[in-house]
């Protein structure tokens, strides 16, 4: 994990920054414990000193800078909420998934397309979605919330590194997914036009 030392360094600098006193005793304690962070600790010690010295000097804040951040927060929040939505596949055993794909009469790769959120939910017929949700013992809303998130690697393909590759490209339509998974044309037509 290449991020670990950086993470540790941040923890140490944060711990130093929130110490009640920033006197010689505190600085020396940190310098002795973390000599590899000496420069950062001294820089931070000085910055905290300058902060204290100028704390009472107010300056106008750039409101556009504030608003931009608020807009970013709201723009990212829905996507993030979807990414955080509960994974309905997590609680389903692999043999149950086999049963599910048989009952839906699709290859397992189609199920994988849903599990990895590769499929664009807007293109999936409601009936198929309801059947899938039922098979996963979840609600359509819950399944939809999960599928609205960005494509992800399925757990069996996950990487341990902090830089796991994301699923390639964007989402595919349900039709394209069926084609990629070599679903026979007759079955494809049934799935795409269930009322025909």
């Amino acid at each position, binding site marked *: 994990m290449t991020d670990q030392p*950086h993470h540790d360094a941040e923890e140490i*600098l944060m711990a130093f920054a929130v110490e009640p006193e920033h006197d010689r005793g505190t600085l020396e304690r940190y310098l002795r414990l973390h000599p590899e962070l000496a420069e950062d600790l001294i820089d931070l010690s*000085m*910055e905290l000193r300058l902060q204290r010295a100028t704390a009472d000097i107010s300056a106008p804040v750039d409101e556009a800078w504030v608003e931009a951040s608020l807009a970013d927060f709201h723009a990212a929040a829905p996507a993030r909420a979807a990414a955080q939505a509960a994974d309905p596949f997590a609680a389903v055993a692999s043999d149950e998934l086999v049963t599910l794909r048989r009952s839906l009469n699709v290859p397992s790769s189609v199920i994988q397309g849903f599990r990895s959120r590769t499929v664009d939910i807007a293109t999936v017929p409601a009936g198929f979605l309801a059947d899938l949700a039922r098979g996963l013992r979840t609600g359509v809303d819950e399944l939809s919330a999960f599928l609205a998130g960005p494509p992800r690697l399925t757990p069996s393909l996950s990487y341990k590194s902090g830089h796991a590759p994301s699923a390639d490209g964007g989402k595919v339509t349900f039709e394209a997914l069926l084609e990629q998974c070599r679903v026979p044309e007759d079955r494809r037509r049934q799935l795409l036009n269930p009322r025909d």
Partner: protein
Amino acid sequence: MQTRKVERLTKRKRDGTPYARRGEVEVALTSLVYLSREEILERLKVRDPTSPNHVQSECIVYLIRATRNDNEERYFNELYRELMRRLASALPRIEGERAGGPENVDGADARDRVRDIFRVRLMEDRAAPGSALDYFEVMFSGAVAALRKTSMGRALRQMARRDAIDDEESGDPSIAVEKAVGSLDVQQELLSDDPNYRFKVAKAIRTLPDKQRRVIEMLLQDMPIDSIDDDVLTIRKVLGVKSEKTVRNRRDAAIATVRAQLGIGSRND
């Protein structure tokens, strides 16, 4: 009357003890949690930090984290805006940073970076309550400074190598530097009654090359430049330089620069 409890922090120190908010923050929170949202929004408008109704930044962090499970957007937005203003105030001013130097190059970027990292941390905290923001409830401005340091550490380290400073191991300071040094009690200068002057002193210190500024900080902490006692942590040892002369050269160059920036002892005065 219903009791409203202020949640404890969950972050633990390396020795396993939990972090705690400062006493005055706890006291303020204990009463803030009984206020209506409208009353809290009114309090946010109080900008004078000496007013008893001023809401401390640490409290705003607590309040915004507590909105995790509701969707009252106006209240959240106002807390968020005020928190960002506090964040901006805790960061060094861009115009106070060295022209053409690493901090100026990274000044605006660093401000944006800290703001964006904080936003992401807040989003993560709302999605799954964690302890990463606990530091900001202990000492908001300190945590912001630490976040700034870690966010720009690598960029600054790379730039710092380009710092050209006169600190040869054995060389004496140039006559010009020596003349300009004189005496300067930085500690006292930072305690000046005149806020504008203090701001100028802080600006002058921030614009020093990293190596010189570090010597000044350790001197301000009363650390000895050198010692024959191996157990004493000295500036020379911390910097890893062979000669105490190097430390003195950096100190003298730093003081000369600060004096020049403050207009002390300049021939053009």
